[in-house]
């Protein structure tokens, strides 16, 4: 195989940083391969990706290495030349699009490289076809969906006719449809056109399916490079580096005495299950009903709610729903399904076109913003839009001062809230000096300081690594145990079965399904129809039910493993 890029003892330290962002990285990239890079937040993944197009040593610092890409030394070749060979796609779909129309976006880099106009015009149609965006030439990037924006960014990179395409978490801000669009586009580029791909992603299931090799980074060091099987099959060491294995690997990893290598994709999992069944018979799984019917008056009642945006789009279509005190409810659905619009009505941020929302039998319109905030705590998506103060303590105390809390009460509630969220030792730090996971916790702490009855978390795990996501969900569990009503909006179905009791599936402004979690997750066809994919264990347990002619409605890897464990 022909090497397309070689990194030889690459170390790098950002200016003013105390520790190396990368240390002694040796890595060879081969022509036509699909390499995945995984690692926890701060492991150096982005820095590594910027080495390939020479941007990183541009902010000079201590550099001592040899890195060659397509035969060029990245230290000596100007970035503009390297950028012809290396296409980059970044995480944030908004920031990376600088053009005013789709075709201008694609043309931008070519214009910078002084490619003649006729040549630019000739290059646009094939790259748009490659990402299936034909017919969008004149549209403004702002009009595209998240998945389309990322595909446009890929097209813009392809127009340079690079040898290598690097994608830095291209799907972490997308919904499942967008994620699927992007991965299938990349896969087609790799398989059909032989494009070399380097992708950084937390999406373990997709990486295991598509990547040829996976590299694990931790604290700037390259821990391991191997096939998905070698990397993801080693569940123990993954958890040591705070990484999430594909659910299939997690499920088989917990089986006692599993004699084969641990499968990492769903297909491999099915065949492994078939052979394992010949060795061992599963015990039948008794369902616990964890969903007690609630007779009390609901804490939140939505009656015939309809909402039409000023531009005429119908966002909510005659929705009626009761939420009872102490429930843990999950709202799932694609972007534009109406989840956030619905939740904004709970907080009186939008005025319904028809119908009403009752909070403890009172219409929300009757309550002041201050009162409502003390009753319903809503943690919005981007924590960085919600930080106004220079210390963590002040941030949490911020709203309380304006809500006429006495100084003593402020002190008490802030202290309690910070301790509950394990932020007490950071109380004097600047919120933005903390990592993203902790910033999200600060916002949760600020909301909890008001001691609301209902807590709504809007996409709390987006942009978080596995450890960060788990920490936040653990908080939600704790709140639920304290008797609070918890509502979570998310795309990440696989994270939720341990937490949620009730799932509400939304699509195009309607409620498609409202059922206990186990039932909802096993309505796989309905979920698929709205492009949500149930976790791999659900598919595996359906397969198990098929093979054994017994009903296994399993939700988690632990439940799957328990079917094969001797009963104590």
């Amino acid at each position, binding site marked *: 195989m022909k090497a397309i890029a070689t990194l030889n003892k690459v170390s790098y330290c950002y200016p003013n940083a105390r520790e190396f962002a990368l240390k002694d990285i040796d890595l060879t990239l081969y022509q036509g391969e699909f390499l995945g890079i995984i690692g926890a937040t701060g492991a150096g993944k982005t820095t590594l990706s*910027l080495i390939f197009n020479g*941007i990183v040593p*541009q902010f000079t610092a201590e550099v001592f290495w040899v890195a060659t890409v397509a035969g060029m030394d990245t230290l000596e070749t100007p*970035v*503009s030349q390297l*950028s*012809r060979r*290396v296409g*980059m796609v*970044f995480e*944030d779909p*908004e*920031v*990376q699009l*600088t053009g*005013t*129309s789709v*075709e*201008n976006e694609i*043309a*931008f*880099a*070519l*214009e*910078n*490289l*002084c*490619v*003649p*106009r006729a040549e*630019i*015009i000739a290059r646009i149609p094939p790259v748009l076809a490659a990402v299936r965006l034909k017919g969008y030439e004149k549209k403004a990037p*702002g009009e595209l969906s998240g998945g389309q924006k990322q595909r446009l960014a890929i097209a*813009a990179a392809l127009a*340079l006719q690079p040898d290598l395409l690097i994608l830095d978490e291209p799907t972490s801000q997308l919904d499942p449809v967008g994620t699927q669009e992007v991965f299938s586009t990349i896969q087609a580029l790799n398989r059909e056109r032989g494009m070399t791909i380097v992708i950084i992603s937390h999406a373990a299931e997709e990486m295991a399916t598509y990547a040829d090799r996976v590299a694990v980074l931790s604290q700037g060091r390259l821990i391991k490079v191997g096939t998905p099987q070698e990397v993801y099959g080693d569940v123990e060491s993954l958890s040591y580096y705070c990484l999430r294995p594909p659910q299939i690997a997690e499920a088989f990893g917990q089986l006692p005495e599993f004699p084969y290598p641990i499968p990492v994709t769903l297909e491999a999992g099915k065949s492994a299950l078939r052979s394992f069944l010949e060795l061992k018979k599963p015990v039948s799984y008794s369902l616990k009903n964890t969903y007690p019917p609630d007779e009390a008056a609901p804490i939140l009642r939505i009656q015939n709610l309809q909402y039409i945006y000023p531009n005429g789009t119908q966002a909510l279509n005659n929705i009626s729903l009761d939420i009872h005190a102490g429930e843990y409810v999950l709202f799932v659905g694609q972007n534009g399904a109406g989840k956030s619009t619905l939740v904004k009505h709970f*907080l009186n*941020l939008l005025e319904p076109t028809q119908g009403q929302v009752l909070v403890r039998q009172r219409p929300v319109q009757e309550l*002041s*913003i*201050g*009162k*409502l*905030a*003390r009753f319903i*705590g*809503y943690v*919005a998506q*981007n924590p*960085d*839009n*919600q*930080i*106004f*103060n220079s210390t963590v303590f002040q941030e949490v105390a*911020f*709203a309380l001062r*304006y809500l006429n809390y006495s100084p003593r009460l402020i002190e008490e509630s802030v202290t309690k809230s910070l301790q509950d969220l394990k932020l007490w030792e950071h109380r004097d730090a600047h919120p*933005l000096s903390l990592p993203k996971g902790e910033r999200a916790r600060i916002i949760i702490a600020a*909301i909890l300081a*008001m001691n609301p009855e209902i807590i709504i978390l809007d996409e709390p795990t987006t942009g978080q690594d596995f450890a960060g996501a788990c920490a936040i969900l653990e908080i939600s569990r704790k709140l639920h145990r304290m008797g609070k009503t918890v509502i979570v909006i998310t795309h990440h179905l696989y994270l939720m079965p341990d937490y949620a009791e009730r799932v509400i599936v939304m699509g195009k402004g309607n409620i498609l399904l409202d059922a206990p979690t186990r039932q909802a997750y096993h309505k796989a066809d309905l979920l698929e129809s709205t492009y949500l994919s149930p976790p791999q264990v659900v598919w595996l347990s359906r397969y198990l039910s098929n093979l054994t002619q017994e009903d296994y409605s399993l939700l988690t890897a632990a439940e799957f493993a328990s079917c094969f464990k001797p009963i104590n």
Partner: protein
Amino acid sequence: MLTLFAGINLGYLVNLLKLTFPFYLLLLVIMGLFNIEQVKLLTHKEILTPLFSMPQGWPIVGGLTFSQEGTLYGINIILKTLTMILVLPLCIFTSNINQIVIGLVRLQIPYKIVFIISSTLIFFPQLFASAGSIIEAQKLRGLDLEKMNLFTRFKVYSTVAVPLILNAMNQSQVLEVVLQSKAFSGSSQRTYLQETKLTSLDYGVMASSLAFWGIVIICIFALESENLPGYCTIRQENLQF
């Protein structure tokens, strides 16, 4: 008017007027009440025509007279600033940014500066959207801006700037990397996808506007000799508006 005809969102104009209205009121009051000397000088009048007088007992404005000339002069200034403010949306919302970019480049303005202008135009709507979501986040913490007194409200509003600026700085760092990876160097040596060609219509518009301004300027000089400058400037502004 022209701005309205060009199909610009009425709500946007109303917001703009709402925002500038206090300043205009202030201008009018100052011109009507206080700016006596300058108005006298401009109109070559010894005594100004009074419209009404303020009661003696009022602080600051007590006993002052609101003059007709001062009011006219105030309206004149307001129209002048309005023209400037309204020309901008007329220009930006009705033209394709790409066309503006190429037009500017052909005027020999360095590409670096042109790029700054064009990315500002793209950046502003994003900035407003993010300011909106920050204010929403404050509401979610129970801050009811409508019920606060002016001083506290101002204090809370000022905190919006913190995430706004920090986010913008963060984004600009990302943008730097993005631009580098797209071979952007700021050099004017580059090619363009779009082409602007001036059609006969464009030449016609340019010629007629030149002619129009020529006539206006001649009128001003002609009228000035008749010692009616105040009237003349007002007329001129009305024409523009």
